[in-house]
């Protein structure tokens, strides 16, 4: 096999910039978005780098326009992306449903902030239900990825675009204001590591030269037609659930207590786990990386006497998926804060003691 030439350099950047850069390196050639804090670094980066790499940048008139532009660019066969934060992502839900219904590949970044309503601009994880339960109308699912560091925010972008193309499905990357704004040195991979051309798109709208016309649509009005199409989608979702569960697991087999957290919250939990272990506590961590499909397989081999504490920056959303994964065999505790509150180490320690 031909050895790929890989040059590596370390660069200091924010999580937002890391996702933007990762997207362009993954072959994303279309970006449309509308300003909203805390993700404004992404359109600012794209405004410069997208044209510089031969792609298209559009500041849309709203998130509704932005997601429908992504629909168009994806329908035309390009790797397309938008980014926003919670209120803007709410506005995009109809468009995401159309993307799912038309089986188009697209990537949506949600740098979550506090809600409901205008809420605030503090980091939050309270859009978990919206992201994992099909926030728009209809029986569909987004693949949802949750990076836990700036490095992973960068590394996960080619995975997001590959999954979108592979399954012809919207992929949401769920970050938050803390991860988006945080600066870390990251390892940049400069190589042809992403090959958008690997996924052929014979369904794309390119003009019908030498072939039959293509139609990109989600309307199925004839008797039984929509049910047949929805069953096709269900088959796809089953394949995704089977093949694409991702998680990070630390000491979960030998630990007496396991913290389950994702994203920024997992980062905080991870350092606490290391601290407590150095003091001899038998504690571990499960960090879901795919929120949908939820990585149930990470919970299969747990033993009955192990205890679980779910910690989130919301009032118990992922908690429901953990409960479904373990059934009623396990005692599952919960600690959550939202609206700008982030569970502190001392609070987590107290919650562990209460288990």
């Amino acid at each position: 096999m031909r050895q790929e030439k890989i040059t590596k350099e370390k660069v200091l950047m924010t999580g937002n910039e890391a996702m933007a850069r990762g997207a362009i390196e993954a072959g994303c050639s279309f970006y449309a978005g509308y300003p909203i804090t805390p993700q404004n670094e992404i359109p600012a980066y794209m405004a410069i780098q997208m044209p510089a790499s031969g792609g298209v940048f559009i500041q849309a008139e709203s998130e509704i326009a932005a997601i429908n532009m992504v629909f168009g660019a994806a329908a035309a066969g390009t790797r397309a992306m938008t980014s926003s934060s919670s209120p803007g992502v709410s506005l995009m839900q109809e468009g995401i449903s159309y993307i799912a219904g038309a089986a188009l590949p697209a990537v949506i970044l949600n740098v979550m902030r506090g809600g409901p309503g205008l809420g605030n601009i503090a980091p939050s994880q309270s859009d978990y239900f919206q992201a994992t339960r099909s926030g728009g109308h209809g029986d569909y699912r987004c693949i949802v990825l949750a990076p836990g560091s700036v490095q992973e925010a960068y590394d996960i972008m080619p995975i997001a675009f590959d999954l979108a193309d592979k399954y012809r499905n919207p992929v949401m990357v769920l970050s938050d204001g803390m991860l988006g704004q945080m600066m870390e040195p990251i390892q940049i991979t400069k190589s042809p590591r992403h090959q958008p051309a690997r996924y052929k798109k014979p369904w794309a709208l390119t003009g019908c030269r030498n072939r039959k016309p293509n139609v990109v649509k989600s309307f199925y009005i004839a008797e039984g037609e929509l049910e047949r199409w929805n069953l096709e989608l269900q088959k796809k979702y089953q394949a995704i659930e089977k093949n694409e569960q991702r998680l990070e697991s630390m000491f979960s087999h030998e630990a007496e207590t396991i913290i389950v957290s994702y994203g920024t919250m997992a980062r905080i939990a991870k350092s606490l786990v290391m601290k407590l272990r150095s003091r001899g506590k038998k504690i571990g961590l499960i960090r879901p990386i795919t929120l949908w499909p939820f990585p149930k397989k990470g919970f299969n081999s747990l033993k009955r006497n192990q205890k679980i504490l779910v910690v989130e920056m919301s009032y118990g959303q992922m908690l429901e998926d953990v409960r479904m994964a373990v059934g009623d065999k396990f005692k599952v505790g919960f600690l959550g804060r939202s609206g700008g509150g982030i569970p502190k180490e001392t609070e987590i320690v107290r919650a562990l003691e209460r288990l």
Partner: protein
Amino acid sequence: MERTISRTFSLKNVRTHYCPGCGHGIAHRLVAEVVDELNIRDRVIGIAPVGCAVIAYDYWNFDCAEAAHGRALAVATAIKRVRPENIVFTYQGDGDLAAIGTNETIHAANRGENLTVLFINNAIYGMTGGQMAPTTLIGQKTATTPEGRDNHQGYPLKISEMLGILPAVKYVERTAVYSPQQIMQTKQAIKQAFINQLENKGFSLVEILSPCPTYWGMSAQEAMEWIRDVMSKEYPLGKIK
């Protein structure tokens, strides 16, 4: 017998779902004829709206996308930007283009997107059962203006005139389909709007006054006369820009 007229290649040989006397069928055919006359069938991409014309792609024999209600111009903007060599047009009703999609319409026009827009103004929401449209005339009875539209429900929206004042808009014309002459004029305007795109001139829109006999409560004949005698007084025909 000599054949004097035949179906143009870009129009499929299928049964219509439109009501008798509906203007959508005429407009579909004109689009198909223009596409064939300009010889652009293999690079044209049409965007169907949500409205009675949602399945326009069942009639047109070329690549098409179906946009969410009102979002055709956002979808078209992106397709044209990533594939400038293609010829991209939207086909939208008055509810789609001038109510729920007003924002997308104004901003695509204001950016001067190099697109062709065909705007079917039938002064009503056909697909959902004949409710008031932004273009409904004062006094016109609809399902949601049972006493006739009055000023409190707004005035007939002159979106074409509004778009005409934007510097990036290249061409706006209002036509109708109530007579053979007007149909030929409509075709001429559609052709111009496509030629403008071929010549990279920018945003071009043709507003077509089109009958909806079903929800106007008229015969096909009466509907055509109503466009001629009433509707085109409120919406004067001709080149706006």
